[in-house]
């Protein structure tokens, strides 16, 4: 996804704390290369290799350098910088916008933004925000909960009880990330789950209607996003062919190119699926810590069988 300059003013870029110095109407400019660049070298007059497709960041160093030049050279440098077609320019430390800069920006209808952040800090935060904004995204049907620190996405056909299970988990101290529609985005080698803005923190329970989860269960019952650790696939209980009975082979599915462990849990009427899902997630965590219950049990069985066999031969 190609982010737009206006996304730098949106909720996912809140840490940047940007204000528009000029260009309120041209914020829909795309950022072709979602990265940052400090244009110091370009401002000295060396425009070859200038990363003009990136967000440009200027701080005290650039401004103080330009002060050593005469006014017409200064205007010329700014003009050339903007003529390269940069997506936008951000000034750190709430620096004032010099007249030459403003004129050059207006001539190319390019937004100029400001923030109170220090330049190095701004560069770090902007890089992270741009990574986030340009991450590959996928909307999937499924309910996501934070189960004692484990991000679990439950998928399954409508009516199987994803929301009801989530409700059960919430009342046992877990938090809701997204009900029924989960948005996933790939950051580095992991997936981050979140809900769609309009329905955030709400869930629907058949027969009751739409609930605002934090109003009923408190602020700890929801969270805005969570790294996805595993997928639980819920299937109707009569499909006895599904799933292993001992849980030895860990299955994974690929989402946006990331392999995510998946377990399949049959849901039968009257089965407390909440407890089953909770156990599945905790077992997953245990395996991550290096304990494999099945393997350990099997070793124990094999050892006792070997001993038994020895006794027969005695």
């Amino acid at each position: 996804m190609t982010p737009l300059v206006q996304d730098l003013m949106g909720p996912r870029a809140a840490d940047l704390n940007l204000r528009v110095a000029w260009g309120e109407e041209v914020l829909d400019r795309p950022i072709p290369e979602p990265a940052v660049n400090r244009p110091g070298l370009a401002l000295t007059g060396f425009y070859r290799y200038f990363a003009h497709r990136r967000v440009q960041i200027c701080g005290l160093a650039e401004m103080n350098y330009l002060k050593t030049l005469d006014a017409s050279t200064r205007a010329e440098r700014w003009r050339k910088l903007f003529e390269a077609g940069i997506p936008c320019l951000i000034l750190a430390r709430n620096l004032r916008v010099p007249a030459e800069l403003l004129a050059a920006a207006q001539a190319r209808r390019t937004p100029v933004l400001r923030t109170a952040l220090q330049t190095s800090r701004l560069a770090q935060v902007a890089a992270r925000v741009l990574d986030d904004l340009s991450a590959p995204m996928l909307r999937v049907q499924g309910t996501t909960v934070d189960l004692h620190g484990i991000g679990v996405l439950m998928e399954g056909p409508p009516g199987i009880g994803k929301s009801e299970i989530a409700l059960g988990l919430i009342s046992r101290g877990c938090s809701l990330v997204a009900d029924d529609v989960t948005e996933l985005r790939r950051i580095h080698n992991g997936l981050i789950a979140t809900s769609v803005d309009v329905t955030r923190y709400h869930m629907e329970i058949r027969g009751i209607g739409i609930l605002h989860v934090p109003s009923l269960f408190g602020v700890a019952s929801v969270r805005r996003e969570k790294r996805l650790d595993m997928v639980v696939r819920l299937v109707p209980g009569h499909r006895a062919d599904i799933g292993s009975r001992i849980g030895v082979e860990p299955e994974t599915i690929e989402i946006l190119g990331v392999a995510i462990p998946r377990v399949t849990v049959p849901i039968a009427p009257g089965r407390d699926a909440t407890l089953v899902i909770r156990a599945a997630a905790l077992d997953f965590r245990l395996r991550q810590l290096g304990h494999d219950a099945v393997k350990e049990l099997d070793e124990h069985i094999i050892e006792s069988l070997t001993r038994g066999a020895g006794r027969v031969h005695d």
Partner: protein
Amino acid sequence: MTERKPTPGSLREATREVVVKNPLGIHARPAALLVRAASGFRSDITLEKNGQSVSAKSIMGVMSLAGYPGSKMLVRARGPDAEKAVEAVAELFEKRFHE
């Protein structure tokens, strides 16, 4: 018009393009009406808009589509009663969700 595509066995598929015509778009009440209508069919029914696809049987899904007035979406049903399902859903759009 509704497109019919017979698929092997009893699995049928039907699609139809619809337009949101009621003044407020698909807010909670129309979403609930739509989900109730869709849930009466055995087919899998989805609504597709801007490359996003959600189940028409999920109220959170339908509301998350941001069906503002004038927006177009595609109703798709797969299953034994696909044509009837698409018909019923499209009718709600056509009748402006009785608003």
